[in-house]
């Protein structure tokens, strides 16, 4: 009887593990099959080099570059904002702040990641954009700067919290060594702690990048839905994710070429996030070896 119970438990655990794997494999398969269908009709060279993305127009162009530039531009703005802010927060919390303050602030910061992204999207559109427009005349109501900045706020906790964990995990003996040598707090932070925690910090940044690249709601609401190959942050753009939403929710006929474009766009996105995750996995593994 007991053996049977053990067996049932073991099998059900195995089953849940298999389900997650099956779902992942299924997603990759569907993406790949539909993407292959798409590329049998559209040449992959056009896909990569055509500077226009107009699958829904009568004059169809299938160049991913405008969507990719939209994604990269908003993500870059988000990262450029979130890395310095997030790192400063993590260094402050780990090396300067009193313990009690750290204990209160850290969970509060992590709340930022719990705000629904649709709220962020409207915050960008209704608050940040009008605010930016008062400085930047001629800025469009939909633009990548506002969407990028708000996305930056959203990913701050990814960087601050994970980097703080990494800094906090640096053995106290190194802190003592640094202070014992006559380091100031600043020297201790930047010459000893940050380099010692660098792998963890890099992983946190990569995770934040992949979060930014995959983010949908904020950019769909605040960045506009106009595929445009540009690096001007004041004009409307469209990201890969926003395009997928637009088509999925629109009245495009299933199985049409227009519909298949979302799988081509999806697989492009997948390749990027997959690469980033692989890099962060590698770095984490190297990091573990170093400290064991």
């Amino acid at each position, binding site marked *: 009887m007991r053996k049977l119970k053990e067996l049932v438990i073991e099998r059900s655990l195995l089953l849940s593990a298999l389900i997650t794997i099956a779902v992942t494999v299924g997603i990759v398969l569907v993406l790949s099959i539909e993407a292959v269908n798409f590329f049998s009709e559209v040449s992959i060279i056009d896909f990569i080099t055509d500077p226009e993305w107009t699958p829904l127009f009568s004059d169809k162009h299938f160049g991913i570059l405008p969507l990719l530039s939209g994604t990269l531009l908003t993500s870059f703005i988000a990262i450029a904002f979130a890395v310095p802010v997030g790192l400063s927060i993590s260094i402050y919390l780990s090396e300067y702040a009193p313990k009690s303050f750290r204990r209160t602030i850290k969970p509060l910061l992590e709340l930022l990641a719990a705000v629904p992204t649709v709220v962020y999207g409207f915050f960008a559109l209704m608050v940040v954009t009008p605010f930016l427009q008062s400085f930047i005349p001629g800025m469009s109501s939909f633009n990548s700067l506002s969407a990028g900045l708000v996305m930056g706020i959203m990913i701050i906790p990814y960087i601050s919290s994970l980097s703080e964990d990494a800094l906090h995990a640096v053995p106290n003996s190194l802190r*003592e*060594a640094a202070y014992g040598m006559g380091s100031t707090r600043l020297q201790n932070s930047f010459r000893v702690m940050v*380099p010692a925690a660098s792998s963890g910090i890099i992983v946190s940044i990569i995770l934040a990048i992949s979060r930014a690249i995959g983010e949908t709601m904020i950019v769909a609401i605040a960045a506009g839905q106009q595929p445009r190959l540009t690096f001007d942050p004041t004009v409307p753009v469209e990201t890969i994710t926003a395009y997928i939403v637009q088509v999925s929710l629109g009245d495009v006929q299933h199985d049409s070429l227009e519909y298949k474009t979302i799988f081509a766009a999806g697989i492009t996105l997948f390749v990027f996030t997959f690469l980033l995750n692989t890099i962060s996995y590698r770095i984490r593994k190297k990091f573990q070896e170093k400290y064991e």
Partner: protein
Amino acid sequence: MSKDKKESVIESSIKRKYKLQANDVKVWYGDFMAIKGISMDIKPNKVTAFIGPSGCGKSTFLRLFNRMNDYVDGFKMEGEINIDGSNINDKDINVELLRKQVGMVFQKPNPFPKSIFENVAYGLKIQGLKDKAFLEERVESSLKQVALWNEVKDDLNKSALALSGGQQQRLCIARTLAVEPSIILMDEPTSALDPISTAKIEELIYKLKDKYTIVIVTHNMQQASRISDNTAFFYLGELIEYDKTNKIFTNPEKEQTENYITGRFG
């Protein structure tokens, strides 16, 4: 590099007769009284050993001389610590400068996860010294002082973490020597090392006392008797006896000291 800075570093190397002095020092961690009023003079250019059972306050007391307790939660202190007549807890004392004068070697070797060269050059670099030839010369002379130069001279760019424990500890001593402090505090520097590495470090300490005032906390009584000139016995936050090492180990005044060194407790 500014010439002034280089000179100020060199100047600090001129041998000064640093004298450490504690006046009725009391320390609390929260409500716990760790040091219960200790006064003592530590002689320059000698090795002074602090011995006593765990929790007797010897490490806490040692760390007062470079103010390493400042970061400990709930730390509170009364009394005076004077180095060469000036109170190191005065408001206008620059604690970073103090720690350059009073170097410290810790219980567990704690090299930075940087190259051997960067480890030894660290203290000079944070003072703003950038002259490469000067740094190289100082790294070499520091490593030679700890007898590590021959072992690592071809791998100066290798990570310090690749060294053995004993080598790491000698590297940490070299790192401390590179900024030419006057006083070196050692907090059980050999407790994490094997006997051969321990012997090397002891030999090194013996040589260093010509140039430096050394205060060493140790659990190992043979070590205290081998390398120190004076020994202080601490018990439960009090200084029980402080005298010439020879006297402490052969003919102590106090019964508690005798009980401890003969291994009856501790």
